[in-house]
């Protein structure tokens, strides 16, 4: 009987955290050895069907793993497993430096030693590096022996303060302990990993708090239809899919392509062929991409390979992709042309290979044209954007596809990009837009309309379609929490700060909105403040101010 509950199944990707803090993603296949560099090697079978979030010691000689109990783990974090007595009262005595002790008198119990008399000396460690290298090879016990040896052969160890001893032990532990913890590869874990080890510009340096904020501001809820422009390699799609519950396959395993039995001699109506599951109509993600094929390389971590999508994966039916050309000018895209029609007789006369090619083409065309029709129909609950390309043009194209009261959320690596967007939806621009439209209507009725919407060199979006455009800046500061030593972490990754732009799609009333009084003179404004406020019901932040 299989062990019950939630556990690491074969062929899933897991995140390993090594003692040095390095993160590693491994796909756990049965019957393999996982090589972790200096931390050792372990058989993957020792991890399969075990629960997540456990910490393991790597046994020597590839013999397997030992589960480290939580108490041992905590002890090692707090005191490195040594000098527990001192650690116990460290909280109280760390800052109680007593200046009343006379010269030569032994420091009182409970009073913290300082590093006043500590002299840095490379000779303190009596082991030579050759000996240490030798120890690395021979010392066993998952690295605990070597740490013990290092400590015992350090001559100045008793001069160290309790804290510096702990720090020393921890430092050695992070270097020599053969230990790792295993974590579920969620989107938040993946984002941490990417920031740690990959070129961050590839995914626009998007961080966990940005993803979280985007999911909330985008009002992402199971059952909705969402439009995505994602040039981060699939990170945004993954975050969205996680929120919609379609990211993780319940049956990970060697991928299976949809089985197509092309030997059918009957027409397309016959159900002999194993049918592709019908695309979902709710709880879907529609991705618009700029190249022929979408770049969703990060989704391979969730066992979804966009080139040969496994039919068992929920994304197979819930993720739809189309190109900008298919969205904006479907007539000009050759993949949108239906395959040459054949009569059943003609089909029957074809060679099996040609016939199967015809059906393949027909199915692909049906799928693509359904996706395109669905996308052009709009009515999306939200649109999420994280793109390298110019965002104003993207918004011009996608905002009209969002339904009223739907959300528009854009991630911008830099403030400049975010403010540019906010400015495009300023109330001054909105007023100008309405006036221009009115003027155009009065002059030549229909002529103005078409060219503006067709011209993609002009990226100015319609500012009347968005309410309350807001630029959010969010930072997360991590802290070290240890008894008596709680403080913000000393270093962290820099780079793009990241901003989230958010607005709500609205449906403006047809015709002119009477907003007279909005540009009344200062004097008048002061006098009738209430009334002026009433005239400018929104986005006062985007109102031009005059600096004095």
């Amino acid at each position: 009987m299989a062990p019950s509950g939630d556990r690491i199944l074969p062929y899933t990707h897991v995140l390993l955290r090594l003692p040095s803090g390095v993160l590693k993603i491994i796909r756990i296949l049965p019957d393999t050895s996982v090589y972790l560099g200096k931390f050792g090697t372990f058989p993957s079978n020792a991890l399969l069907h075990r629960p997540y979030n456990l910490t393991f010691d790597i046994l020597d000689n590839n013999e397997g793993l030992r589960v480290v109990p939580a108490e041992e783990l905590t002890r090692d974090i707090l005191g490195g497993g040594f000098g527990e007595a001192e650690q116990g009262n460290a909280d109280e005595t760390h800052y109680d430096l007593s200046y009343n002790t006379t010269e030569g008198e032994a420091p009182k119990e409970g009073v913290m030693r300082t590093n006043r008399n500590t002299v840095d000396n490379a000779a303190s460690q009596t082991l030579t590096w050759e000996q240490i290298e030798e120890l690395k090879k021979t010392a066993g016990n998952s690295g605990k022996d070597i740490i013990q040896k290092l400590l015992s052969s350090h001559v100045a160890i008793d001069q160290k303060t309790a804290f510096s001893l702990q720090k020393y032990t921890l430092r050695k532990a992070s270097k020599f302990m053969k230990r790792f913890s295993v974590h579920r590869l969620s989107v938040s874990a993946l984002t941490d990993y990417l920031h740690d080890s990959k070129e961050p510009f590839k995914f626009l340096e998007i961080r966990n708090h940005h993803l979280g904020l985007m999911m909330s501001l985008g009002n992402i809820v199971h059952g909705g239809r969402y439009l995505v422009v994602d040039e981060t390699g699939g990170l945004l799609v993954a975050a969205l899919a996680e929120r919609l519950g379609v990211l993780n396959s319940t049956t990970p395993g060697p991928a299976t392509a949809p089985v197509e039995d092309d030997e059918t001699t009957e027409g397309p109506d016959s159900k002999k062929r194993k049918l592709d599951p019908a695309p979902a109509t709710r709880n879907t993600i529609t991705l618009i991409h700029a190249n022929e094929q979408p770049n969703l390389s990060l989704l391979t971590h969730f066992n979804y390979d966009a080139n040969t999508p496994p039919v068992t994966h929920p994304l197979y039916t819930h993720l739809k992709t189309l190109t900008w050309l298919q969205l904006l000018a479907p007539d000009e895209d050759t993949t949108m042309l239906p395959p040459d029609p054949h009569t059943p007789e003609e089909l029957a006369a074809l060679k099996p290979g040609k016939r199967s090619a015809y059906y393949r083409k027909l199915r692909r065309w049906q799928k693509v044209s359904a996706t395109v029709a669905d996308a052009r129909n709009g009515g999306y609950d939200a649109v999420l954007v994280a793109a390298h390309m110019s965002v104003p043009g993207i918004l011009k194209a996608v905002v009209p596809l969002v339904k009223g009261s739907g959300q528009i959320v854009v991630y911008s690596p830099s403030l400049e990009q975010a403010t540019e967007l906010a400015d495009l939806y300023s109330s001054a621009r909105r007023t100008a837009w309405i006036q221009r439209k009115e003027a155009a209507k009065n002059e030549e009725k229909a002529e103005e309309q078409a060219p503006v919407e067709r011209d993609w060199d002009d990226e100015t979006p319609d500012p009347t379609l968005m309410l309350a455009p807001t630029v959010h800046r969010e930072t997360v500061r991590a802290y070290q929490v240890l008894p008596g030593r709680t403080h913000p972490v000393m270093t962290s990754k820099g780079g793009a700060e990241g901003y989230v732009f958010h607005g709500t799609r609205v449906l403006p009333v047809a015709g002119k909105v009477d907003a007279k009084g909005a540009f009344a003179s200062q004097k008048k404004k002061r006098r009738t403040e209430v009334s002026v406020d009433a005239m400018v019901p929104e986005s006062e932040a985007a109102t031009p101010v005059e600096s004095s």
Partner: protein
Amino acid sequence: MATPAVSPFLAIPSELSSEAKPAIIHLKRDQHQALVLKPESTLQTRFGNFPHSSILGLHPGSQVRASAAVPSLKEQRKRKRASNSNTTTETEGIQTAAGFLHVLNPTAELWTASLPHRTQVVYTPDSSYILHRLGAGPGTQIIEAGAGSGSFTHASVRAVYNGYEDGRELGEGEVKVEDNKKGKVWSFEFHEERAGKLREEISEHGLETLVQITHKDVCAEGFMVPSEEGATTSPRANAIFLDLPAPWLALPHLTRQEPSPLDQEKEIRLCTFSPCIEQVTRTCNKMRELGWVDIQMVEVQHQNMEVRRQLQRGYDEGAGPRSIAEALTRLKGVNDLRDQRKDAQIAQAHGEQASFAGLGFKKSNGRRKQETGEEGRIVSRMEPELKTHTSFLTFATLPRVWTEEQEKEAAEFVKEHVSKGVEPRVVGEKEKRWKGDEQESKRQRKKRERAEQKAAEGGEQAEGEVKEEAENMEIDG
């Protein structure tokens, strides 16, 4: 009986109705009002009067013009007074036809902005980060202790929702998936009145089956939910959010020992929300004592940026110089003026008229005309009032209980059912990332099958045929 509609918090309805409660009235930036639409009522704002009947039936997100037809009683009185006394020509700023508003579908964010504050509210920047880090997704059972004003309740129900038990969200012809567990928020509040208020709100918002509100002091009594006849139900939660003054008192109740409120077969993610550092250290000590691992503490800071067009005003508009050049021109002008004054005094002394040439700048009336909204440069600054500190967020994980017997059992299982007993190959640096499984293409498969078939039949001739067919296939493709 018709099933009630899906909460507007969970799906945008096609039109505004009195069923979907509440509608959020967007008056201006950061000024929202939650409203239950009733056909006979009228919404009176300083932007004008809006009969609900003019809003009902619209698509959410619609802009609504104030109704000129229905002046409010107050306004009628005012008008009457104005016409009687005939003193003031300035109306009270409420010009009925001029105003408009937007009517929006509610979201957790809009509700947070418009909800009646009963306690300190967990705002979106914090709640979004917490939910993301807790891994809350459809089907999650989340405990929320210290429900307070219900802000986090709405945010979390949105995250864990994956359908109602009665399947009311399903469209025509859709079949309810039976085996997936419906996500639920298990909310605890020890203040009776607040719990009652929240229960009313949740029920009004159509979320009552998705949020279980229990009036209980979790620090003293734990997280088991009382059901009928003195029995208790376990939330079987796998995500926990504690917004309590003393989370360390509640932690011992989050135990793996039955009766346990936790999902015994999953790891538990926990977040505590405490404003003071002392609370954090105490909570962390308790967590470590109780076997929680991966303890991380962070602080989320958030600002809204105000984006404006900065139009620089010069001397001609009654302000300072725009540039050094302007300053120089003016300074020179002042010098000239002084000289002129001297001249003028001399001239006056001689009984002549003097003329004052300008400073090079004309003063205008200070009004600037807006043309396209593209004048000036874009500048941004932080909003004037900042929340510099909300709370510290402490995250921790409680792994599953994993005994030696279970370990043995798992090892046994893997050996028998998963492992094929082959020599393990090393997965190292190169194979770190999976790039998709290699698949046998259709052509390869057919080729192989035919080859196998022919091989079984035997004969050199067959081999030749296979080759020929393979070539044919290639031409077909």
